[in-house]
């Protein structure tokens, strides 16, 4: 009797776990499956494509498709006119290639990478100093600073969108492409700084103070301690915070959509994908392939830091 109840119970439990896994994973399965399907296969509810279609990935990653759209006669002309210099040839070719049909995935990817990387780097550097300061040094106003950081990381988003846009527009930074990128990086630093400060502060407090005292007796100054003791001892936490900031910046849509509106060449992936979706080139396989390629770097980063990150998240350092 007892045994029978146990079997029923563990079967139910197994089903519950399966249901949870299914619920978490089915949109990803949907995404992967659709990215590999031909358009005639979309209505087929099965997730396994009747025939695997890799065109979308090839197109996005620019593999083998560079000469596809160029008419035969032009290609012939180019190969038979030795008078033309390389740059002239390229100019002619690019006329046919840049019809606006192709989604410049790699370019957007590079933009996203640059913005997210620089923003998280600056954010982490500043917060190492700041977090060390308020986890170790005694100074007047320390608790106000700490509480202030906690307070501001509750707010953000739309509340800051209009004033920040006005401030940056008035400063003239948004008039040039370089200035726009700088503004966006500053915005992302602001968005991630409170989290970084909070998470790193929590971590630094777990490092025994006696190590620092010993170093001080050996004659090391505070900066020496930060560089030679604190950073090496907390490198895993620093990497975790870096990746967490990176993910926030990588995923950000709202500020990018406002700031980069007039610079198509600077689009980051979220805004590029959204534009692709509402354009006439919206084809499910291409959108899903682009989604997969956007998600994969983040997933890999997450998997690599998962143990540390979940600890850090649970310690209270979170932000949306």
């Amino acid at each position, binding site marked *: 009797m007892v045994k029978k109840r146990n079997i029923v119970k563990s079967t139910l*439990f197994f089903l519950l776990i399966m249901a*949870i*896994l299914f619920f*978490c*994973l089915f*949109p*990803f399965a*949907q*995404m992967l499956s*659709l990215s590999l399907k031909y358009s005639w296969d979309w*209505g087929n*509810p099965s997730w396994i494509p009747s025939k695997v279609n890799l065109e979308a990935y090839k197109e996005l990653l620019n593999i083998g498709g560079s000469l596809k759209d160029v008419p035969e006669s032009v290609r012939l002309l180019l190969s038979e006119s030795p008078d033309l210099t390389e740059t002239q040839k390229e100019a002619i070719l690019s006329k046919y290639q840049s019809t606006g049909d192709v989604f410049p995935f790699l370019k957007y990817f590079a933009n996203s990478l640059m913005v997210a990387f620089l923003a998280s780097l600056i954010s982490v550097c*500043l*917060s190492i*100093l*700041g977090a*060390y*300061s308020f986890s170790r*040094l*005694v*100074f*007047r106003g*320390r608790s106000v*600073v700490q509480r*202030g950081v906690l307070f*501001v990381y509750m*707010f*953000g*988003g*739309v*509340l*800051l*969108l*209009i*004033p*920040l846009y*006005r*401030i940056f527009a008035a400063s003239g930074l948004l008039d040039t492409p370089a200035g726009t990128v700088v503004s966006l990086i500053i915005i992302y*630093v*602001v968005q991630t*700084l409170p989290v970084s400060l909070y998470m790193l502060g929590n971590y630094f407090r777990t490092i025994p103070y006696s190590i620092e005292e010993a170093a001080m007796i050996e004659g090391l100054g*505070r900066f020496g301690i930060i560089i030679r003791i604190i950073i090496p001892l907390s490198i895993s936490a620093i990497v975790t915070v870096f990746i967490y900031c990176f*993910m926030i910046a990588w995923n950000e*849509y*709202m500020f990018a959509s406002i700031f980069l509106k007039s610079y198509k060449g600077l689009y980051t*992936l979220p805004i590029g*994908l959204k534009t692709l979706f509402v354009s006439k080139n919206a084809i*499910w396989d291409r*959108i*899903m392939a*682009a*989604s997969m390629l*956007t*998600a994969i770097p*983040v*997933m890999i980063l997450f998997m690599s830091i*998962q143990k540390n990150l*979940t600890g850090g*998240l649970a310690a209270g350092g979170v932000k*949306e």
Partner: protein
Amino acid sequence: MQTSPRASTKVKALKTRAQQEQRLGWLLVLPSVVIILSLILYPIIYNMFLSLFTFDYSGQRSFVGFGNYAKVLADPEFRTALGTTILYVVLTTLGTTVLGVVVALALNKEFPLRGLVRSIVLLPYVAPVISVVFAWQFVFDPVNGIFMDIFHSKLGIFAERVNIVGDPNTAVWAAIVFSIWKNFPFIYLMVLSRLQAVDKTLYEAADVDGASSWQQFKAITMPEIYYVVSALILLRVIWNFNKFDEVYLLSSNVRVLSVYTYLKAFTGSMDFGQGATLAVLQFFILIGFILFYVKKVLKW
């Protein structure tokens, strides 16, 4: 009493040492503080200032006092947006919390491959919104999506294929489901780490006393996770109330307040004055709720 010269230099040395620490402390934290003050606190105040003006096409502003507030509060679209926001916040917070707690309780039990399952559950939370949002759009696609395939073709709950995301009246439900899916892992993670800290001997003692699982849940687990869950509910309300990306990218038909503000300020006539007003109202509604919640539920 006279202090010896040596002692006094020592006191002096200590004093300058402490002063040095003070200065260094401020020096190190200063860049962060400057950035936060100038790019978070100042904009919040500047936003309140902007809400008192109206802007023409060239960006010239003229003072209107509380004119924007009168306009916004009389605007039926604002009230609809507020209603949609409340519906969205209440249901998403409820859904993520219940699901998160249930999953945390389940994954707190021992079973094979538990570590793997635990990390898979986090995937919805870490995946970029922009990429999963399209998968969900396809799920709700009226022609090819599996939602309609199941609920229309197989179960017949819907009499015809409807475009849930495209219809402004139903899009909010898709947004709610999507948000629950995306954010329940956060609650799960927090609750799980709290559950792992619960003293196991409490359950053993309860077992000896013959308490059922439900009784154990009520008498031990519930009180143990009460404060974590109430704090998490507060966080989720704050975040879901301000949520923009998840809603707007799924469907701009879902006019929650943040989407409404965004559209008001950056599309069409680009009304910065009313946009800023909306943001200020949103800020105060939220502050009001936080104060109420902290006092009544968290009892601080």
